[in-house]
């Protein structure tokens, strides 16, 4: 009697499980939760918290659009290469210099370039001094206190480093330079120039624009001494081993992104582009990154660094 009761109970349990799994497969989102996630490594911008807030909605959007569950993986700039090679993530969202490094060393596939600011998928930087500074031209910088952004920042370090070389200033010999530590480096060095800690600094144009828009600084506070050429901004890429069909789906989803696209995060519906502070994505050929390759060669930077 008891044996029969337990057999019946077991049978009911199995039936219930089957019913639940069938119901769970009814829509794509449910099936996403059971699949193995595909990881996207996001290079940290100013801080991990900020990067999460910006790109988790985009990651969710990609999951919804492609039917593949994507997972957000925050990665410190200096760890991108190491963690990519260890297989921690298959897709990458990095700045354009890191894309070039991953492309040259591991053959990643270019998916799409991010549009933000006045020049679409490209942006630039400049050398700034405080208004009223005795430094009127780049050659006046010799022997002065100079601040660069993080070493792997295309428009906060690399482009300005090259600009200085172009103008006859060797940063290694002619400047007393520093790189501010910690997070929000670009903002720090802009404030550093404003309040006299540095005589001049390398600054991405985007950061200056945003700080003016937010009222943190005034355009009249600073002078742009020289400006860099425009180079590609942040970039989505995928490992050469990634499923081509999935890569194509991701590319299509990114290119289709518009201001109305939303994603649900923790029960809240968010506008994807607005949350990510970007204007969209576009395809540009890999040859557009050649300017970065040339700059990296000249500045003895990865992936061409020689010791």
């Amino acid at each position: 009697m008891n044996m029969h009761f337990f057999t019946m109970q077991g049978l009911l349990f199995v039936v219930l499980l089957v019913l639940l799994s069938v119901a769970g497969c009814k829509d794509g989102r449910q099936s996403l939760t059971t699949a193995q996630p595909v990881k996207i490594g996001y290079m940290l911008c100013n801080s991990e918290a900020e990067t999460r807030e910006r790109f988790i909605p985009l990651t969710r959007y990609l999951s919804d659009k492609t039917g593949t569950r994507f997972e957000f993986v925050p990665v410190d700039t200096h760890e991108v290469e190491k963690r990519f090679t260890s297989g921690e993530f298959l897709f990458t969202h990095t700045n354009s210099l890191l894309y070039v490094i991953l492309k040259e060393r591991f053959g990643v596939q270019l998916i799409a370039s991010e549009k933000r600011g006045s020049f679409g998928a490209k942006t630039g930087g400049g050398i700034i001094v405080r208004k009223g500074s005795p430094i009127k031209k780049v050659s006046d910088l010799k022997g002065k206190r100079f601040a660069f952004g993080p070493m792997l920042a295309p428009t906060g370090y690399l482009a300005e480093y090259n600009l200085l070389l172009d103008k006859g200033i060797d940063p290694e010999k002619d400047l007393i330079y520093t790189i501010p530590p910690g997070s929000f480096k670009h903002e720090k060095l802009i404030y550093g120039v404003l309040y006299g800690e540095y005589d001049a600094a390398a600054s991405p144009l985007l950061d200056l624009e945003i700080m003016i828009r937010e009222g943190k600084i005034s355009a009249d506070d600073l002078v742009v001494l020289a400006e860099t050429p425009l180079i590609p901004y942040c970039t989505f890429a995928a490992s050469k081993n990634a499923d081509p069909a999935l890569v194509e789906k991701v590319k299509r989803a990114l290119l289709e992104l518009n201001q109305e696209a939303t994603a649900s995060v923790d029960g809240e519906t968010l506008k994807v582009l607005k949350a990510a502070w970007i204007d969209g994505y576009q395809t540009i050929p890999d040859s557009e990154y050649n300017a970065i390759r040339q700059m990296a060669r000249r500045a003895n930077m990865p992936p061409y660094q020689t010791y």
Partner: protein
Amino acid sequence: MVNCVKQDIFDRLLLTAFVVTCAALLYIAVASPANRSTAVTDDKALAREGQLLLIKTLYDPLEKLIADGHYQSALLQLEELAKKYPGEPTGLLLRGRIQAARGALPEAVAGYSAAVRANGSFVDARSPLSRRDEIAALVASASQAANDTGSAEAHQFRQHLYYLKSRLAGGCE
């Protein structure tokens, strides 16, 4: 001897009514519809002159920065002005000029298109604000690029371009 007749209140009321009527007739005669229209026209002309003066004061230094190739400085100043005068069409146009100069043609075309939508005088050859030649030159150089662009954003690029072409051809909003 002068025979003075003392005026009572009705006489004074009558006299006041007479004076008021005369003043009203005089006013109607002076401020006729033609004169009123002239006054309005004068006001409009004054406002237009004021607007031109403001635009000149605000944007002439930026035009010089752009002409000298100081694009970033000009962009930062535009950003500052956009906070005070959001959506001001001359600012949009100058931003488009910087974008065009730096090779960002889709963004430049979108900028010029927004400027013309906000102020049609930019395509009017007779307007003191006219930038017709500049817009026509941009449209010519962007047309080739729009044909070469195969990305998903090309549609929007072409839409803005067609809009500018139609406005240059005399089409209305």
